[in-house]
């Protein structure tokens, strides 16, 4: 994957930041999160126009041809603003998976519409266990002449209810493969109610659904893992950016909220929590950016860096949001205060594509492998 120059990167990050400052306010988040679609089509269009949706997609297929470094930066902004959008599903997971599979025909057919935002894609990779491991796949593919048909069920499909295109991992007699499916006959998409109202998840039942098999140059789950790692770096960036933002508004509150004649931030109980959270926040930022850098460089420890970012950023974001509510006191126990929206997002991010303990286990495996 390519990489922008430092200057291009900053300019790009700035354009995302300006778009979100303008059209991704808290009021926007609260409005959009209550809609069925869960995203604002106008903002989505704008995101596509500035190149954020096709960020990772090769210029050959209409994208910006950027890589994990740029993705991570954008996601820091997304996290800070709590943007509601299918960016992770379409621009990262689906686009990443198609590129990792390397089927030129499928890529040229599907990626341009993903890049320009005209089609929303997502990937259905796990069943009701929700572990994003190959053993949790609960869809089976069977050949039907030249074509294929899928049966079974996928769950926790991000933005499945608004997707125009599904990339579905399914077991076949020849092993696991990825299929291209349109949400049409034989495909029943059921929206799942989510605790994080800014997220959309779906459960999808396949009942002899017509599917097209995407060719893969390598074991298909390897490509899935590559896409998942991109998504994990994206989430890490979102977690780092979200955590930093929550800490900022919490510290601001601690400076202005007066109790017993002085700012609550002058009390060690609050001050020391804030200091500890700064360490969490900065560590999350370091972890997310390092994972992006190692992935971009194709470094031997890229996998370890992703695993570390996955659990460190997840835990940090949850802890920052949780402590932030405590530090605010009563005001953050109200629906109208934004803190709980971030906590909801943090709890969602901590589960998507593997829980922290799962990543810790894999991190140790990477450490073992690295040193024999």
């Amino acid at each position, binding site marked *: 994957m390519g990489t922008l120059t430092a200057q291009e990167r900053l300019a790009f990050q700035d354009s995302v930041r300006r778009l979100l400052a303008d059209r991704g306010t808290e009021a926007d988040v609260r409005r959009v999160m209550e809609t069925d679609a869960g995203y604002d089509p106008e903002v989505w269009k704008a995101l596509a126009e500035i190149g954020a949706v096709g960020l990772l997609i090769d210029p050959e297929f209409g994208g910006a041809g950027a890589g994990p470094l740029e993705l991570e930066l954008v996601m820091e902004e997304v996290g800070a603003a709590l943007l509601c959008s299918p960016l992770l599903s379409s621009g990262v997971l689906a686009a990443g998976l198609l590129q990792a599979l390397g089927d030129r025909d499928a890529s040229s057919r599907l990626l341009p519409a993903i890049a320009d935002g005209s089609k929303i894609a997502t990937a259905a990779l*796990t069943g009701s*266990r*929700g*572990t994003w491991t190959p053993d949790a796949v609960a869809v089976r593919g069977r050949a039907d002449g030249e074509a294929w048909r899928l049966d079974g069920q996928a769950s*926790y499909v991000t933005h499945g209810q608004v997707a125009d295109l599904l990339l579905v991992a399914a077991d076949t007699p020849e092993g696991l493969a990825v299929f291209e499916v349109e949400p049409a006959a034989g495909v029943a998409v059921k929206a*799942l*109610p*989510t*605790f*994080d109202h800014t*997220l959309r*998840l779906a459960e999808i039942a396949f009942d002899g659904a017509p599917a097209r098999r995407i060719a893969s140059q390598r074991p298909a789950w390897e490509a899935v893992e590559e896409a998942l790692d991109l998504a994990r770096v994206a989430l890490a960036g979102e977690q780092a950016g979200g955590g930093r933002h929550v800490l900022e508004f919490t510290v601001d509150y601690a400076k*202005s*909220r*007066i*109790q*017993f*004649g*002085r700012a*609550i931030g002058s*009390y060690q*109980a*609050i001050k020391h929590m804030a200091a500890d959270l700064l360490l969490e926040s900065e560590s999350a930022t370091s972890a997310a950016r390092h994972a992006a850098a190692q992935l971009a460089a194709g470094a031997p420890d890229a996998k370890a860096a992703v695993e570390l970012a996955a659990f460190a950023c997840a835990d940090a974001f949850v802890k920052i949001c*949780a402590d932030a*509510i*405590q530090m605010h*006191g*009563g*005001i*953050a*126990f*109200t*629906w*109208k*205060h934004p*803190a*709980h929206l971030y*906590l909801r997002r943090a*709890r*969602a991010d901590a*589960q*998507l594509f593997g*829980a922290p*303990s799962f990543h810790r286990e894999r991190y140790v495996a990477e450490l073992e492998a690295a040193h024999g």
Partner: protein
Amino acid sequence: MADDAALPLTDESLREEVRAWLAANWTGPLQTDAERKAWMAKVVEARWAVPRWPSEWMGRSLSDAQARIVEREFAAVGAPGTGQDRTNLWANTLLARGTPALKEKLIVPLLCGEVGMCLLYSEPGAGSDLAGIRTRADRQGDHFIVNGQKVWTSYAASADYGMLIARTDWDVPKHRGISFFFLPMKQPGVEVRPLRQITGESQFNEVFITDAVCPAENLLGELGQGWGVLQTALAYERSVMGEGARGPRSGVSEGPGEPLIALAREAGVLSDPLIRQEIARVVGLKKLNALNTARAKADLKQGTSSALMSLGKLAMSRILHEEARVRTLILGAGSLLEGPDHPRAEDANFLTLNAYFTSIGGGTDQIQRNIIGERVLGLPKEPEVDRDIPFREVRTS
């Protein structure tokens, strides 16, 4: 009757008297609100509602031990209404500090449950620092004019009166300029707005008070002595309050035994060594808190004061947050969901948010640690910058 002081009242004669009265009057479960009201009136009339109180106020001047006998007999048949001298926050506060006129007017209705009440203490700017309230009550002839905003008020919409603290003197230090009122709620100057919590529920309200009128006879205690009245009321409240924390809200049973074990078994992860360690931790914390509470009660019985009581709220806060965390760990991706189709997720997520009800409400964990450190361990207080200056000059948000 029991108020014939000449006859020494034995435990046995008392027990017989209650039993006889219940046998004659109690006819089983109360089905309707009207039945309930009628029963309460009967209990009050027969002087069983507040047996520890003086006869002047519908009581019998019984000792605590004797009153417990009455309570046990009522409990044995399932009849409500007695023991209000322990449990009726409103009536107790009124009896202790109210004007004769207000007592005459409200004590019996309060005991009969005919008057709805709410608490008007906290304000947006005065949470931990309750003495920093800015709601004002200004004397105007035989009444006060009240202006300000209160928050975290349960049952405000249906209440007839609110127990209100308001500032009546701005030129003395903060604790000394506060007065305590029974504010009539059903008047144009009192607007109640439901307050939606992070859980999505609206158990509480904001109360906006604009030129509301409060008769001077509704002042409890002396003018400017409201902080002391409040301490009395809070003590009644604490002595009644149980744990206060709510369990899972889905209402879908997890089966018998320890809920976390059942949940992990249902989720198919009970054999996971990580999960098992976490379950042990949380169940252990719950058990330890129960043991501490039992020790505290035993200590109280022996008349020694107990450090353990004050630790309960802090312990419960930790338990609730930890239990929510472990439920999330057990559910994994399942915790992403909510709603009636996903009762386990609903529980884990509700508990995650509702744990703050305990760790923030009724004094944050941080304030609680101050109290334990200072009152139990005897550690010195921090310098108080606002203690001895006129409230007018105190820095506020």
